[in-house]
């Protein structure tokens, strides 16, 4: 998920300083320069299983501290095991996503971090990715069918090796709720009643941040799925269903009942700000992905965090859970590098994912047999939520055409948050033009 879209935040964060980036870029560039030579040595085309390369470049958009260190742990473990060196090229999260088009068409790294869903299939369909069926032959047994399906491209070949996913839900502080006597709501009406009670108690019931534009999509997705079902979510984001219909306007009408309880300062704050407000008990609960826990650096606060799934509204109870999958892909060029295939196979093993999860505990490893012994109760709950879900949805911005998510839905949701109105006819008009341009 877009972890850090705020330029201010990246300035505050201890994140990668400019020097570090320049340095890694330099190393990356040096690594890139080496690739054509290696490719030339091995004759180049095809997955070249016999290639004797012993290095690869890895482009990482995980620039926040926790995931950055976690990926470092993975590459270190991989180098230690195989002797293959990995030159990691960390790019600020948001830049990485924004430049993905030119990145993949230019001289990308061999392996890179990316997402499942339409966002992966789109680039696979354009021939910018290398299939990794050979890797899946080795690691296939480690994954559930749902994961395998999520890693398959439009042509039936495998493109992604999932690393982790994380459920979205309402996060809250247990001690605070116990003290105030709040109970977990099961239905939407209970949620509204609880929110009203919190408001009467003088706190903001639902933490909310949408300065970056994407976090509000989580609320939209959940209300949409709870009202219209998982399949409708998939069809709508793929534009097989029209946006200009009662089912969509129902979503906004239902959401409207929640708006008075969501943080009115949403449009001026980032998800990190809203996480701080939850920590400070200024807000009662906060609907976000479990990566929100990365922000709670104080262990006592972290131990105090719990979550509940989005309550049921109409169709499917709480069967569907929003749990976007992040993983690794090979660029077209990386397909020629045997070492890069090995690296992906390592990421698809319990060993590789354990190395990651040992540092970043906010996400759930996707591989079977991953180490769960160090799971906190919260980790366990996250894992169970995903494992027990009948449907796992990707995020709106991963299931939809990027132009639709970024150019249409972000402004539309922001203006909805502002005044509670939305023009579904216009959403459909824009969707028609944008999907036709692809």
């Amino acid at each position: 998920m877009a972890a850090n879209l705020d330029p201010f935040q990246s300035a505050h964060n201890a994140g990668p300083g400019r020097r570090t980036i320049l340095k890694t870029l330099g190393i990356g560039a040096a690594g890139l320069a080496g690739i054509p030579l290696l490719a030339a040595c091995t004759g180049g085309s095809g997955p070249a299983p016999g290639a004797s390369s012993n290095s690869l470049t890895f482009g990482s958009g995980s620039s926040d501290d926790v995931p950055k260190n976690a990926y470092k742990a993975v590459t270190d473990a991989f180098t230690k095991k195989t002797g293959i060196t990995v030159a990691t090229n960390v790019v600020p999260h948001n830049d990485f996503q924004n430049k993905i088009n030119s990145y993949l068409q230019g001289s990308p790294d061999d392996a890179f971090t990316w997402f499942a869903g339409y966002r992966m299939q789109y680039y696979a369909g354009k021939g910018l990715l290398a299939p990794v069926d050979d890797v899946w032959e080795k690691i296939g047994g480690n994954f559930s069918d749902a994961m395998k399906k999520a890693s398959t491209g439009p042509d039936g070949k495998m493109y992604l090796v999932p690393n982790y996913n994380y459920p979205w839900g309402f996060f809250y502080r247990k001690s605070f709720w116990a003290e105030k006597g709040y109970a977990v709501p099961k239905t939407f009406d209970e949620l509204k009643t609880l929110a009203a009670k919190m408001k009467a108690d003088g706190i903001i019931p639902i933490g909310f941040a949408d300065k970056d534009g994407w976090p509000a999509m989580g609320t939209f997705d959940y209300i949409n799925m709870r009202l219209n079902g998982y399949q409708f979510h998939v069809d709508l984001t793929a534009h097989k269903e029209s946006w200009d219909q009662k089912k969509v306007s129902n979503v906004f009408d239902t959401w409207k009942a929640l708006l008075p309880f969501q943080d009115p300062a949403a449009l001026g704050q980032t998800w990190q700000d809203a996480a701080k407000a939850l920590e400070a008990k200024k807000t009662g609960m906060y609907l976000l992905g479990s990566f929100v826990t990365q922000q709670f650096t104080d262990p006592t606060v972290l131990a105090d965090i719990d979550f509940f799934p989005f309550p049921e509204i109409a169709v499917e109870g709480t069967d569907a859970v929003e749990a976007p999958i992040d993983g690794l892909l090979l660029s077209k060029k990386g397909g020629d590098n045997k070492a890069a295939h090995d690296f992906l196979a390592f990421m698809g093993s319990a060993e590789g994912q354990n190395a990651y999860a040992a540092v970043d505990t906010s996400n759930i490893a996707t591989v079977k047999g991953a180490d769960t012994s160090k799971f906190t109760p919260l980790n366990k709950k996250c894992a169970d939520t995903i494992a027990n879900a009948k449907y796992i949805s990707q995020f709106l911005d991963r299931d939809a055409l990027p132009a639709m998510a970024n150019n249409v839905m972000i402004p539309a949701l922001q203006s909805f948050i502002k005044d509670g109105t939305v023009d579904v006819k216009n959403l459909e008009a824009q969707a028609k033009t944008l999907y036709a341009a692809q």
Partner: protein
Amino acid sequence: MSTTAEKPAAPDSEPGAAGRTTAGKGHAGAGRPPGKARKVRRLTRRDKLVLAIMVGLPTLIQLLLVWLPTLFSIALSFTRWNGLDIKDIKAAGTDNYRFVVQDYPPFWPAMQHNILWLVFLALIATPLGLLLAVLLDQKIRGSKIYQSIFFTPVMLSLALIGIIWQLFYNRDSGLLNYLLGTAGTPRAVDWFGDSNVNIWAAMVAATWRHAGYVMILYLAGLKGVDPSLREAASIDGANAVQTFFRVVFPAMRPVNIVIVVITIIESLRAFDIVYVINRGTNGLELISALVIQNLIGEGQVIGVGSSLAVILLVISLIPIVFYLSRTFGKESKA
């Protein structure tokens, strides 16, 4: 942008070349130094080579970096393209323009904000710069220090200015809310998040920089005003205000024209600060930000982005043509 720059630039920027090519054609600008032109006429092969490089290279750069991209943008604005594979380009007629004007909600707010930006710079920021220049032109102690202080923001990028102003505007911990006594309370003004105020907040931050820029230009202009004009005015019994508005200000006409054009261009190319705040969404839409949103990044729709860019180009051409025809039209008459 540069068509108009190209033609009139030739006669007076290269007196030698101009004399050579236009001698005898009776061009207004070439008529003045006939004696000189004859002397420079005999050019050695090396001179010709140097001239060819000096004229050719910039022309080539112009062509490659300005003209071709412009023409491509115009061509692409009539197509549908996802920016990935050249094969995917499809003709779209004027659909993109229809889309932008009819279906794209941020477009009209962006137009209004660009106009608001222009009006604000013209009525507040530029006069403020003039005021600073006039004050600092007096013989006050430490005038150089004040000048440096006011000029410093000009040297910072607007992106950095956005970050600096965040410290003032932050809802919970910003200086402004602290001074208003509302920090940390629900009454705190959400300077960057509330779409009713964030455009004003951004414009104030932009003014901080623009005023320093205008100040420096006017300071230079004021230094260039002949002191005897002021003396004459004071002998005629004009007071300070009259001297300034009736004598000094009109004498700075060339600077004034430059300032008008700079103000217009600054308002059209305003971009960085809104992009830093919230990527030009939620009340901070500007045409330039929409162009970037549609041309760069995951939400790439080349056709729509290009048509927005062409609209911006057409709007920008108006003040540019006006400026160039004013300056060069006047000189050729002289």
